[in-house]
């Protein structure tokens, strides 16, 4: 009854429709438009979906790969979300993740003679610290000097990429080798793969790149949820994000919160380095971030910056990335780039056009409420 009256009097959607139905509609529309692109290319979208699903979940190795991509998207999605809560748009996830990987690489190249329990905490700290450091300068400039964080983080992505090329080509390159890569890490430093970990318990699982960092990503989902909604710091951060002036009057420092949220955001993005460098590649190399930082934007928008939403969105994109890789085997005219198109559409419909269908949805809810009131 109360829902019906709020629909009629205030023109507001019920809460569940606002946080679940509307985003779901947006994502479905994005996927439908993606289907149109497939039709345009001259393939059958239903067949494509079938191959995608099989490629993403059809066998153990596929599930492993899907969750491996999901891990990256949880890290970068959370990074974007934490900044969103403070009212900041961090486009710099790509660069922060790149630097996070550099931190991991430096630690492991220096210490990989040591036992794993020494390397792991050091690598985790380095990943977070380097990512946070790369976010610090844009954060400081935004907070103290009003430099627009979107522009500065974009610039820092490019600076990170030239910095990494310089470091790898001139410093870390393994002598006597052409491609700019560091030497391979000693095997005792590698993060255990999930199939190995399951093996310890006698469960057999096909090998895949899925590794221990997946568990860390899941833990971070919970930690971020606790931080944002169940600590004073999270409360302050959200207050600044909703209304900087109100926050200031309440004695909450916007400067402090902008910097803290960006440091956390950068650290979260930096953890991508754990998965890619310590978990999968086992060496420092170029372009391992591969656009995952940008997918984080789609994930955060789709997941409405809530850990549950982020987990679901990261899983969807993980499935799309892995299933997308299978597409090119079945359809000679489709490659994984289809997933990039879908990603763009999701950002467009779930982000920029998030209220596109709100008037129509509201009209439907009105009609239902009126019918109930009348009958």
């Amino acid at each position, binding site marked *: 009854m109360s829902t019906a009256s709020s629909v009629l009097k205030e023109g507001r959607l019920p809460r569940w429709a606002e946080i679940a139905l509307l985003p779901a509609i947006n994502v479905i529309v994005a996927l439908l438009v993606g289907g149109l692109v497939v039709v345009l*290319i001259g393939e059958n979208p239903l067949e494509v979906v079938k191959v995608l699903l099989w490629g993403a979940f059809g066998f153990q190795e596929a599930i492993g790969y899907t969750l491996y991509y999901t891990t990256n998207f949880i890290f970068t999605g959370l990074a974007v979300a934490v900044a969103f809560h403070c009212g900041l748009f961090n486009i710099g996830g790509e660069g922060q993740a790149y630097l996070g990987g550099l931190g991991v690489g430096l630690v492991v190249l220096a210490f990989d003679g040591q036992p794993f329990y020494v390397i792991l905490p050091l690598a985790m700290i380095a990943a977070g610290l380097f990512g946070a450091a790369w976010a610090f300068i844009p954060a400081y400039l935004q907070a103290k000097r009003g430099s627009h964080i979107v522009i*500065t983080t974009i610039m820092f992505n490019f600076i990170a990429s*030239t910095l990494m090329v310089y470091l790898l080509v001139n410093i870390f390159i393994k002598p006597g080798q052409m491609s700019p890569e560091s030497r391979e890490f000693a095997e005792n430093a590698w993060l255990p793969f999930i199939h190995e970990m399951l093996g310890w318990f006698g469960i057999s699982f096909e090998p895949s790149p899925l590794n221990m960092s997946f568990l860390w990503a899941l833990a971070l989902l919970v930690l971020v949820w606790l931080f944002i909604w169940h600590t004073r710091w999270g409360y302050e951060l959200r207050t600044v994000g909703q209304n900087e002036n109100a926050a200031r009057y309440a004695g909450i420092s916007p400067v402090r919160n902008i910097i803290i949220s960006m440091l956390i955001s950068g650290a979260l993005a930096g953890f991508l380095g754990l998965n890619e460098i310590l978990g999968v590649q086992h060496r420092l190399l170029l372009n391992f971030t591969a656009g995952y930082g940008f997918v984080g*934007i789609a994930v955060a928008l789709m997941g409405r910056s809530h850990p549950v939403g982020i987990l679901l969105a990261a899983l969807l994109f993980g499935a799309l990335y892995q299933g997308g890789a299978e597409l090119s085997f079945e359809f000679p005219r489709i*490659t994984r780039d289809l997933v990039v*198109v879908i990603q763009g559409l999701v950002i*467009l419909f779930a982000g920029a056009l998030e209220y596109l269908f709100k008037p129509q949805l509201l009209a439907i809810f009105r009609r239902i409420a009126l019918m109930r009131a009348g009958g």
Partner: protein
Amino acid sequence: MDYFTLFILILDSTLRVSVPLVLASLAGLFSERSGVVDIGLEGKMLAAAFASAAAAYVTGSVWIGLLAGVGVSMALAMVHGFACVTHNGNQIVSGVAINILASGLTVILGIAWFSRGGQTPPLPPSARFQSLEFPGAAALADVPVIGGIYSELLSGHNILVYAAFLAVPLVWWILYRTRFGLRLRAVGENPEAVDTAGISVAKMRYMALACGGVLTGVAGAYLATAQSAGFIREMTAGKGFIALAALIFGKWRPVPAMLSALLFGFLDAVAIRLQGVSLPLIGEIPVQFIQALPYVLTVVLLAGFIGKAVAPKAIGVPYVKER
């Protein structure tokens, strides 16, 4: 090679690499002066490059290619307008969406239509913009100094190069000497006042986006049908963002934006020349250092350490009419 010739050659390639930067930064100028952030320059340029190369290859006409590029870039600009002006969506999110869409669509359509791993087939000379020789350029080529400047630097570019640099005074004139320009600037500073005067804020912003769409379209066509002979995936390679940096570095004004674009183009040209060259006193400068300079300089400027870059006041804020 004497230093003068080297200098002329560097300036010559500076002009060539600056063209897309000049055009795209002018495009961003229209949009941002009207109050709409344009992160999507990169994507529009990329989509236009693909469309122009594809159309020029299929029809054999470079002009139809140019038209296709402008059309596609305009269409994306209108998507941006639909999201940000009509539906008051987040302008940055929309720009990011356009960049990612363009990056995916160009490759997926390129593979579907041409089956060349996302490239278009190489364009024949007739489907490309050819360089124009100024009268007497060949005759003057051997005259010292003047020959270098006239025959090497000024003559011998394609028509889009001249068009790009002529667009600068034209944009300046539109922005500062026409009623449209006045309204455009006003709508980016104080949309309420413009609305009160009975002018539609939305219409002004759509028109600004359309102007930007044309310019990024030409920039994309230049990349694929003038500078190169066809489309290569991700061929814009961050030029849209450098153009955005040039726009900010030029403090949202046409002539300074062009000068910044030239500066960034010059750095690019020098970086290629200096690869592996040891300079007196300084030694070898890492190429990556020069490549990073445009971005570093822009951050330093935004931080307010070298003058202050003041953005249009209403930038990034959707205009919601009071009821």
